[in-house]
């Protein structure tokens, strides 16, 4: 089982674990925000550097499978975590609390996510999910003196715990029905017991549990509260990494057990509801973080369209969509954390009135992000949405395609409202702080900006990469 290739294959995860422990020791020796921050970023880069160069698909103990998809997603997660790490520094510098533990939790949460995307077994999935969730509890309620953060923490904890229990019960039922905990084993068994009540009941419960993590309707209600209560970098994490990794596992799960017709119906219902209700909820929202939360519900709905479309094309579309979505969400929450002033986040849209006239670069970035989320051409979001649509069209999911288009129209309304707000002249002078830690954040924004445009104009490179990744996954 433990041969020489296993350790290199798991290098990023090993580095992250070691980094978390070392980080804790660093704090024990002497508290220094900057040192811990830099250490975190360095270890994330190190983990990123250790990625890749795997000969092919490799299973580890039946718990993990290190394939192209896993490596790609691990890379994406590490890069995203790197950005979140950058955004955390100015954010927490203003905090009066102890800030250093946040980075340990960030590393651990990243570890959980990066383990989840290579999980091929219910035990490893469950444990990675819990690493992620438990770290998130701490990250969400991190600014514990604020009532909203604590409230968000309690809400997330209770709901996540209940959904974990539901998920576990479901896994248990599937285990009773098949006697297997590994995905491939379950897949083999599922062929023989396709209609078993235990199995389907279990699958239904697993679906509910995953649906909660992905914030799909009707398991979506926590999203806006948690996003708006949590510190902005944490919200970025919940919106991106936490969802993306669970989505990958969802894909792996249904790839091995097959997309049964009834399950497809359930997914269609969920996708339609998520797309419409997400956009509807955001329509009149005045709080930027809540607006992003609702928008993320709708975006996960779009992703489920790709999921239903299935196949290599669906997976390509989904991964590309995830990349575009990650970039947009990172930028948006990054901006929110950057503009936070002595621990007070600018939440309301009216706080951003006239941003353009004071900080044109930031306003243009935020507008671009909104346009990308709305799927306006020449942004990464457009290619993503188009890709997903194409996948839907090719697999003849007409209902989903129609709803996707319709809900995009609804969505456009509120995205543009944000843009309009940025460019209007404020009635009274609004002050946007200039953070003293602007250099790294500025660079991060610049990179996100370039990515948004570049992926909108010349996405060919990334698409080819992703297509190769999928082939490796099926290798």
């Amino acid at each position, binding site marked *: 089982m433990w041969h020489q290739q296993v350790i290199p294959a798991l290098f990023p995860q090993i580095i992250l674990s070691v980094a978390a422990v070392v980080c804790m020791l660093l704090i024990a020796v002497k508290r220094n925000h900057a040192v811990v921050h830099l250490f975190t970023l360095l270890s994330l880069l190190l983990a990123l550097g250790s990625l890749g160069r795997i000969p092919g698909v490799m299973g580890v103990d039946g718990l993990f499978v290190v394939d192209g998809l896993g490596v790609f997603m691990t890379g994406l997660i590490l890069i995203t975590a790197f950005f979140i790490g950058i955004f955390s520094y100015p954010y927490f510098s203003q905090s009066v609390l102890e800030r250093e533990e946040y980075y340990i939790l960030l590393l651990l949460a990243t570890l959980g996510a990066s383990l989840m995307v290579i999980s091929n077994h*219910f*035990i490893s999935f*469950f*444990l990675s999910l*819990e690493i992620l969730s*438990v770290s998130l*509890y*701490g990250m969400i*309620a991190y600014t*514990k*003196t604020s*009532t*909203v953060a*604590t*409230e*968000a*923490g*309690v*809400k997330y*904890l*209770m709901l996540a*715990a*209940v959904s*974990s*229990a*539901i998920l*576990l*019960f479901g*896994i*248990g*039922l599937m*285990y*009773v029905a098949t*006697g297997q*905990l590994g995905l491939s084993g379950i897949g083999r068994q599922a062929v023989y017991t396709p209609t078993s009540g*235990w199995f389907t009941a279990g699958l239904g419960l697993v679906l509910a549990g995953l649906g909660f993590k992905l914030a799909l309707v009707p398991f979506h209600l926590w999203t*806006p*509260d948690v996003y*708006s*209560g949590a510190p902005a970098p944490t919200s970025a994490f919940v919106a991106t990494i936490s969802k993306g990794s669970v989505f990958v596992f969802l894909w792996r799960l249904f790839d091995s057990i097959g997309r049964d017709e009834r399950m497809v119906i359930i997914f269609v219902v969920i996708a339609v509801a998520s797309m419409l209700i997400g956009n509807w*909820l955001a329509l*009149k*929202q*005045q709080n930027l973080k*809540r607006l992003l939360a609702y928008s993320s519900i709708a975006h996960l709905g779009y992703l489920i369209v790709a999921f239903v479309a299935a196949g290599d094309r669906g997976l390509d579309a989904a991964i590309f969509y995830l990349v575009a979505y990650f970039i947009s969400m990172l930028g948006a929450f990054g901006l929110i954390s950057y503009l936070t002033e002595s621990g007070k986040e600018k939440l309301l849209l009216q706080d951003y009135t006239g941003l353009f006239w004071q900080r044109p670069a930031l306003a243009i970035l935020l507008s671009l992000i909104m346009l990308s989320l709305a799927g306006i051409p020449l942004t990464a979001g457009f290619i993503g949405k188009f890709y997903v649509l194409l996948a839907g069209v090719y697999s003849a999911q007409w209902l989903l395609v129609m709803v996707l288009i319709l809900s995009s129209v609804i969505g456009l309304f509120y995205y543009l409202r944000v843009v309009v707000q940025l460019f209007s002249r404020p009635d009274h002078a609004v002050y946007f702080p200039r953070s003293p830690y602007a250099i790294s954040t500025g660079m991060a924004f610049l990179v996100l900006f370039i990515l948004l445009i570049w992926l909108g104009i010349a996405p060919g490179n990334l698409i080819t990469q992703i297509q190769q990744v999928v082939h490796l996954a099926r290798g």
Partner: protein
Amino acid sequence: MISVPVHVQLLLASILFLIGLVGVLIRRNVIFMLMSVEIMLNAAGLVFIIGGAHWHQADGQAMVIFILAMAAAEVAVGLALILQVFHLHKTVDVDCLEELKDTQS
């Protein structure tokens, strides 16, 4: 050892699970909610034991050990949060936590 049908065993687990679920839904005291979650997790663990016994495998039991660890971690953070809530709000009433919501315009 015993010859109780598996679905009866599962019925027991389901009943316990759903009692826990009802508990989460109807109690306003956060501590009780956390307790009810523990009941649910315990019921889920029971399912794995049933499965392990049914297939005569140790995997089910291994999973239950992991569930125990997870329950412990969750309770630790959960109770810390409850203390913080009590510290800030002077109550453990979950309905007091409604600062975050959509404001009707």
